[in-house]
């Protein structure tokens, strides 16, 4: 499929050079992560005395402390609730809007599309002052609902870009014949379009999940109760609290890092599709 520079012969000397650079970069990326995970299984003493050595035993003490003595499972649950709810809203709102933009001709069609796309270039945090004022007024300050709403608004532009690109490739004949058969407009969307959206749904979900799961700014500004914290905010709080206990801190960082990394390692091709949607055709 890839017609590119790969079918060109590369001599041994060049190949050695290429591998040297690629492996060197690999070490630069992987070593800090390796150090983080490894140190989370060590005691403070071990971390200082033998920082590069593998842990002598698989010491779970740091994790035991983290999960038993802090509200960690609660933070995790908060992150899951916020992310899933926001992703669900993004999927529904942006697939519906994309259907209208992609499949109907109406005045301002193009304008509305670009109005949504503008959101990809604007950092939503520049409106934080009014967002905070609004949520205080709505009595949603220090409430997970405020995060869900903000992340939904944040994810809709990318959702619309990905969904419209996908729907433009669905032929109109299918919906036209259903319309002749007397199917309603909502029926066409539900019964004909949605079943075809499978891959696009995964792309939109994965592409938005990573930044939403990792966001620190909005919890920092909108949440102040301990039992409403999401993982990134809790990580900062716990980091400040245990700054001298290195083993525990590495367990905190590893616990925050591992779930998105596993997700990413398995689903990164969908993330990449979302990232390059619109930018690169084909």
């Amino acid at each position, binding site marked *: 499929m890839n017609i*590119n*520079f*790969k*079918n060109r012969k*590369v001599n041994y000397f060049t*190949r050695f050079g*290429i591998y040297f*650079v*690629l492996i060197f*970069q*690999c070490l630069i*990326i992987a070593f*800090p992560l390796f150090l983080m995970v490894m140190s989370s299984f060590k005691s403070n003493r071990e*971390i200082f005395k033998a*920082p*590069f050595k593998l842990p002598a035993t698989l010491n779970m003490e740091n994790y035991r402390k983290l999960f038993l003595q802090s509200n960690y499972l609660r933070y995790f649950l908060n992150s899951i609730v916020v992310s899933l709810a926001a992703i669900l809203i993004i999927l529904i*709102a942006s697939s*519906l*809007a994309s*259907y*209208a933009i992609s499949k*109907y001709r109406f005045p301002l069609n193009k304008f509305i599309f670009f109005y*949504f796309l503008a959101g990809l270039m604007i*950092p*939503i945090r*520049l*409106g*934080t*002052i*009014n967002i905070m*004022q*609004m949520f205080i007024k709505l009595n949603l300050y220090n409430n997970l609902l405020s995060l869900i*709403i*903000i992340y939904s*608004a944040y994810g*809709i532009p990318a959702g619309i870009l990905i969904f419209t690109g996908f729907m433009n490739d669905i032929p109109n004949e299918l919906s036209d014949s259903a319309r002749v058969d007397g199917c309603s*407009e909502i029926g066409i*969307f539900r019964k004909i379009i949605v079943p075809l959206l499978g891959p696009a749904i995964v792309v939109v979900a994965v592409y938005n999940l*990573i930044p939403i*799961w*990792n966001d*620190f*700014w909005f919890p920092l*500004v909108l949440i102040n109760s301990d039992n409403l914290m999401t993982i*990134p905010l809790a*990580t*900062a709080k716990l*980091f400040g609290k245990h700054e001298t206990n*290195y083993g525990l*801190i590495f367990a905190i*960082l590893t616990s*925050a*890092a591992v779930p*998105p990394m596993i*997700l990413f390692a398995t689903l990164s091709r969908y993330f*990449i599709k979302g*990232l390059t949607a619109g*930018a*690169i055709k*084909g």
Partner: protein
Amino acid sequence: MEMFKKVKKVRYYIFLFLLPALFIYTIFMILPLFNSMRMSFYTGKGIVPDQFCGFQNYVKLFTQFPFRERLSNAFLNNIKFFLMVSIFQNVTGFFLAILLTRNVKGVKFFRTIYFLPTALSVIVVGFLFRLILNPVWGIFDKILRVIGLDFLIRPWLGDPVTALPVLAIVTAWHMIGIPIIFFTAGIDGISEEIIEASRIDGVNIWGEIRHMIFPLVKPIIGIVFILTFVGNFSEFEIVYSMETAYGNPAYATDIFGSFFYRTTFGTVMNVVSDVGLGAAIATIMFILILIGVIIFLRLSQRTD
């Protein structure tokens, strides 16, 4: 008549389909942006400044001590930060992408590894490197000693000369997967005829990059730089996690994001917050980002 009714009904459905997305996006993203800008013309205590003051906040920012110094400092630091990230992340990413699209095995593996940090929260990355560079643990300094570079050892995050470059390098470590993905996709998209033509011409690698790869991926280079620019000019977390919201040491790492946060939500840090002034900073950030996006779009679309 029948036809007209049907069209009207369809219009109603189009509106219905657009409504949820338009509502959420407009009410919670677009309107807050403009309402926040409107706040920059108000002053007063608390989260809702209520006294109209015209351009007073801007006058304060551009002429009064210490705001003027903080503003120009944040601006210069942000430019430097962007330039350094561009080199460490985008230029490096470009050359790695060229290597990754050569005839070598294991490309998928390398790409996955380079992309892995992208999954992490900035806050996790910032804290991790704060520990690695911390002189108390001294793990980075130990590595330097092992490879015989001990003369370089210094308080990396405490020295005003090295602090900002270190933050740029850490950001590049975190995000280098993004330009790599864009550039490899762009290079893989170059058509066979063009590659064939260059092979016949016997062009060397530099000629290939200059005359073939670079012009053809120019729009993608534009996108990568826009993403970097927008990201860097609204960046906050890397400063917060590595150098606190004060942009230590001595404001050497203070950029727009941290300046905005401190000014707007500062009360928690024993500084009286000034929401109106913060709104003015956010407005300046918005204008700068807009100018940057337009410049990079123009540059990447120009054909010469």
